[in-house]
């Protein structure tokens, strides 16, 4: 098998693998989200702390706007990694920016969870709060995974073509993270 043919195959395998991984994540998150929808639809009362007095202390809209912005930065940077599989100059730098934005997002999620817990609002308090913890926590975990992947792309010394391919994979993943986060915010606060 020639080197070019092998590279083509590796590229196709990587692309297929990434799409399958994304499909699997979508199904996982879909199970969590559909659980939330079923629980919420089946409840006559759905009292969330941010609708019953906590909103004044916790500026939800601003907080989530910031978190969405961090993810947005990550996605925008990931789009610069590679759209076509062509090697991109400065790729490690973009990867570091993504990693930073991802870290900021995860830190903010953990901070908010700690803040709620310090007021006695733990997952066991009510089903709405439990849903909040699980859905936002899951996105935070997935973002943490993407952050580690971005660091890996930045650090591992591999040929430029291979690095560009990894950049393209990273781009798809971060787009997925953005969609998941928008779905979470919309589902938890706007519906």
């Amino acid at each position, binding site marked *: 098998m020639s080197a070019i043919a092998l590279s083509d195959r*590796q590229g*196709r395998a990587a692309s297929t693998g990434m799409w*399958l991984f994304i499909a699997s994540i979508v199904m*996982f998150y879909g199970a*969590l989200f559909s659980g939330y929808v079923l629980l919420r639809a089946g409840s006559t009362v759905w009292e969330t702390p941010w609708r019953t007095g906590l909103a004044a202390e916790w500026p939800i809209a601003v907080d989530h706007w910031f978190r969405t912005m961090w993810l947005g930065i990550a996605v925008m940077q990931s789009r610069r990694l590679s759209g076509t599989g062509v090697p991109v100059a400065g790729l490690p730098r973009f990867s570091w920016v993504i990693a930073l934005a991802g870290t900021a997002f995860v830190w903010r999620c953990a901070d908010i969870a700690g803040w709620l817990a310090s007021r006695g609002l733990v*997952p066991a*308090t009510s089903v709405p709060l*439990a849903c909040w913890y*699980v859905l936002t926590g899951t996105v935070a975990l997935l973002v943490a995974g993407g952050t580690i992947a971005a660091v890996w792309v930045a650090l591992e010394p591999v040929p430029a073509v291979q690095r560009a391919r990894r950049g393209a994979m990273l781009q798809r993943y971060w787009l997925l993270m953005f969609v998941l986060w928008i779905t979470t915010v919309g589902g938890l606060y706007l519906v």
Partner: protein
Amino acid sequence: MRALTDHKTLGIAYANTSGVFMVVGFLLMLLFRWQLAWPGQPIPIATAIFGETNAPGGILLPEFYYQLVAMHGSVMIFLAVVPMAVGALGSYFVPLQIGAPGLAFPRLGAAGFLTYLAAGLLMAASFVLPGGAANSGWTSYPPLAILASSGQTVWLVGILMLGVSSMLGAISLVATVVAYRAPGLTLMRLPFFVWSQVMTALLLLLAFPALQGAAVFQLMDRVAGTSFFLPSGLAVSNTPLAVSGGGNPLLWQHLFWFLAHPEVYVLILPAMGVVAEVITAHARRALWRYGLMVGAVVALGAWSMVVWAHHMLLTGMSTTLSSFFQITTMAVSVPSVILITSLVVTLWGGAIRYTTAMCFALAFLPMFGLGGVTGLPLGLGPSNLILHDTYYVIGHFHYLVAPGTMFALFAAIYHWFPKITGRRLNERLGLVHFIGSFVAMNAVFLPMFLMGIMGVNRRMYDAGLQYQLAEPTLAWNPHMTWNAVALGVFQLVFLFNVVWSAKRGEPAENPWQATTLEWATTSPPPAGNFATPPVVTGGPYRYEEERA
């Protein structure tokens, strides 16, 4: 880790590990079958092995009995049959059958195996925890599962890990088929086994995450005190539970069965693939209506994801929803029938060789058929009302998985053993193994249909001693248990055959003169599989050419 990046080593590692788990699952079954045959009678040396807390005076306590039953189901499905059918056979033979030098992501495949091994060891080790292993059935229904002992938490962690393992293995397998096929090997020239493995991998990828999501919810309920599956006002032993409530136990059932019904097809599709390979090679005939079979296997996989709630027909769902799931359940039998019919018609006019592999493959057809046909009454509301939670259900799914999938796995081992070792398994011992297994397996499971029709509940620790309706069936249980023992004895013949033949069996390169690509290389295959990359110019089954 490095050795496991070779797909053949990986396949053998899966085969050995899942084989060990199969023995463990079988031994668990023998233990609880003793209790069903002779309720309350002491098992010799049981106290010495399981301790006074589980088996005082050699008598299994109900709590321990339910651990055995739950772990038998979990081990057999998640740790034995699926890893054997997908991890072992898929990893070893899919790259060979498509002319690839290996898996697309060897490290991913190896990581998947190690995750599976860790999950299996964790779940098995949970027997030593205070309160023992998981004891809420392999379905882990809440609220029972949330109130159960700590083994249930370990079970949930194990399930999460198995989901990760399945995902890694499935991604590697599908990407291999997409990107690493030999030149000329178009999709419609793929061996049917490869199609079945790809569909199985896709089912694992898309269905297992639902169970992982459910497992996260249940873990939260158990560890963090949430109430995803606990309704308000729940009381245990007249004491209200100190939880917020507001959850819904049926949510678990929906999420669980969204995986667990496709899981049945995860068990069956690779078996269909194996049987197709064996029948073509040993009947010297190309598959009848190959294209139709491919369409059927794709349809079966896709359709299996919209039938899950037939497991929940008695949960009070609306008539409309119930009707929808009854219709989809009846409809899913159409592609199954197409597959079985194609396999049977393939035999027509064939030059059949009654090798052990072929005997197991032929036995699969009626056994799987019986399992499938007996599923139809369970998919319809009125008959489900009578048969739900009875031994009929046990008989039904064991016919699909035990004489069904297991026979196909044996067919695969007898058929591909020469490819793996370069030697044939002894045919005489093989036939003893086949006949013994066939008789014993049916003697164990066939009476269960009658027991179920008579109304005997599947979950009774004492086999129904206290129920008049179960009285006539009590005498059957000892016979079923002795046949289960006999089944084990015949597997010893098989194990002896494997060990003996691996060293002293008759040398063989391609004893069946099979035409699929895995036989185009040496047996066992070298590193990289093929000395020169193969080029494919036709379909996988070229048996008509030898007749011409």
